[in-house]
């Protein structure tokens, strides 16, 4: 499974401070630690910032790609910030994220096509968050058609079934699981399927327990990419064990120590 490290996000107070002070060492350190812990891709999010978010994104990209040699995931609701981030990337990146809403697709798909980027697509649209797996699959199909029309092959599409906090929308956790199963059959080869894992535990105590339990469940039904905290050692241990149980990684005692 592909691990996208979530820690370089201005929503975290320490990251917000590092961004404010343009503390490149702190950002580079966070990048290196995530990659050492097993992240294959790093997500970059400037967080809510008043001043020049495009400039900050460009700065983050340049600091992180000087520190580590992994692809980046440009995470912003604003297409102009995404464009600035993509432009600064030395290798193909992933856009985080579009939805099924026409306006979003029109703004972001041309950027993905132009830069050879992957794109994460949340299965929501103008009507809001879908109630069940079937509604998610319907939006997913529309997104898939739009990306193919834009010349983006399924292997660059990351469909996100939308994970909601278990303390707020308990029944939706299993709907998202069912949607993962459905997404796998949309086309052959299937698109990537991704979740923003930490959403599931938003606002709950013992978040790590909820995250790692849900990760194992998602992997069993076909998840192949997740945005998560690679510095959570217990979570990464569950990932290794799950990969072995699903016959995706060759068993070795040392991986379970």
């Amino acid at each position: 499974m592909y691990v996208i490290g979530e820690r370089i996000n201005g929503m975290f107070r320490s990251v917000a401070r590092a961004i404010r002070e343009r503390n490149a060492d702190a950002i580079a350190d966070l990048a290196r630690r995530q990659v050492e812990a097993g992240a294959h891709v790093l997500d970059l999010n400037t967080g809510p910032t008043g001043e020049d978010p495009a400039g900050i994104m460009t700065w983050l990209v340049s600091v992180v790609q000087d520190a580590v040699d992994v692809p980046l995931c440009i995470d912003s609701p604003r297409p102009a910030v995404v464009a600035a981030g993509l432009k600064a990337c030395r290798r193909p990146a992933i856009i985080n994220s579009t939805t099924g809403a026409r306006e979003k697709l029109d703004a972001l798909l041309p950027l993905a096509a132009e830069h050879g980027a992957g794109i994460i697509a949340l299965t929501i649209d103008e009507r809001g968050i879908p109630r069940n797996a079937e509604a998610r699959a319907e939006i997913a199909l529309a997104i898939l058609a739009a990306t193919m029309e834009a010349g983006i092959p399924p292997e660059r599409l990351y469909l996100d079934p939308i994970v909601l906090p278990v303390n707020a929308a308990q029944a939706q956790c299993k709907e998202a699981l069912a949607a993962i199963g459905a997404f796998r059959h949309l086309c052959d080869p299937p698109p990537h399927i991704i979740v923003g894992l930490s959403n599931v535990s938003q606002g709950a105590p013992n978040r790590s327990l909820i995250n790692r339990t849900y990760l194992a469940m998602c992997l069993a039904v076909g998840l192949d990419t997740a945005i998560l905290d690679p510095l959570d050692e217990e979570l990464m241990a569950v990932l290794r064990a799950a990969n072995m149980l699903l016959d995706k990684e060759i068993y070795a005692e040392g991986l379970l120590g």
Partner: protein
Amino acid sequence: MAVERTKEKWPGRVFTVSIGATAGEGGTRGRVVTIGGHTALPFVSPDDPPANRPVIAMIVRDDKPRDWPETLARPLADVLGSPVEWAQKCVEEYGAEVVCLSLASTHPDRQDASPDQAAKTVRAVLDAVPVPLMVVGCGHHDKDNEVWPRITDAARGERCLMGIACQENYRTLVAACMADGHSLIAEAPIDINIQKQLNILVTEMGLPPERIVLHPGNASLGYGLEYEYSIMERIRLAGLQGDRMLAQPMLAILGEEVWKAKEARLPASQQPAWGDETYRGPAWEAATGMGFLVAGADLLAVLHPEAVLALRRAIDAAVTG
């Protein structure tokens, strides 16, 4: 209708391992041999930039072998018992790219040669031939642990390939290789899980993963070839899929394992239907080697000069398509 050839794309890559060090690199070798580096299965992707081709090492023993069939002993008869002359013959006459020195004499049940004697032999062979050297101990754990630090020291800086580490006995060899700048052979007989576990243990001690060559066991045509073949194939696939603990080049040791087979040994006088043993014996060693090459072997250790020639022709043909 034109058939489009599918090009394989794998996320992983086999590590590149270099054997031997030139004067500029702190050794005295005339050339360095590099194996591994693959981005695809063996011999199937002419589209990919060619990785390093498989290499043939010729086995040299430090003692006089017993019980060899005449077919095997004849071409080497004038050098058996003299590892230096044997190595020179392999390099000068048969064009060996690497010499694989077997320290069989150190085994307590054979001559029980001392670590100092073994170190002298290693140095003498290094001084006699310009090619890179691989050295394998006698397989007796306690004795190997006495011998290894002495021979790694005697070959310091030559970037040899030293072996053979196994799950029950690897610490001394790993430490010795790290101290003296050598690479290591890691063996797990026909067990991919233990092979991976051993790599985890070895790298946790600090030896980089690009200084390990895997030896997934011994086998011969008719005697376990298919088991080792399938393990080697799975190792290569796992490495190409991105498993760094199974992404090392692989070694297959032919030689005496093959020549134990009655099909390689018995003279035609005893088995008329099997035909001339002077052809059949080397063919058995070469056929075994060809099987391992197709499974993904990067380094073959071979005894019979005719088998070396046959395998070299086969590699040429497979590489050029």
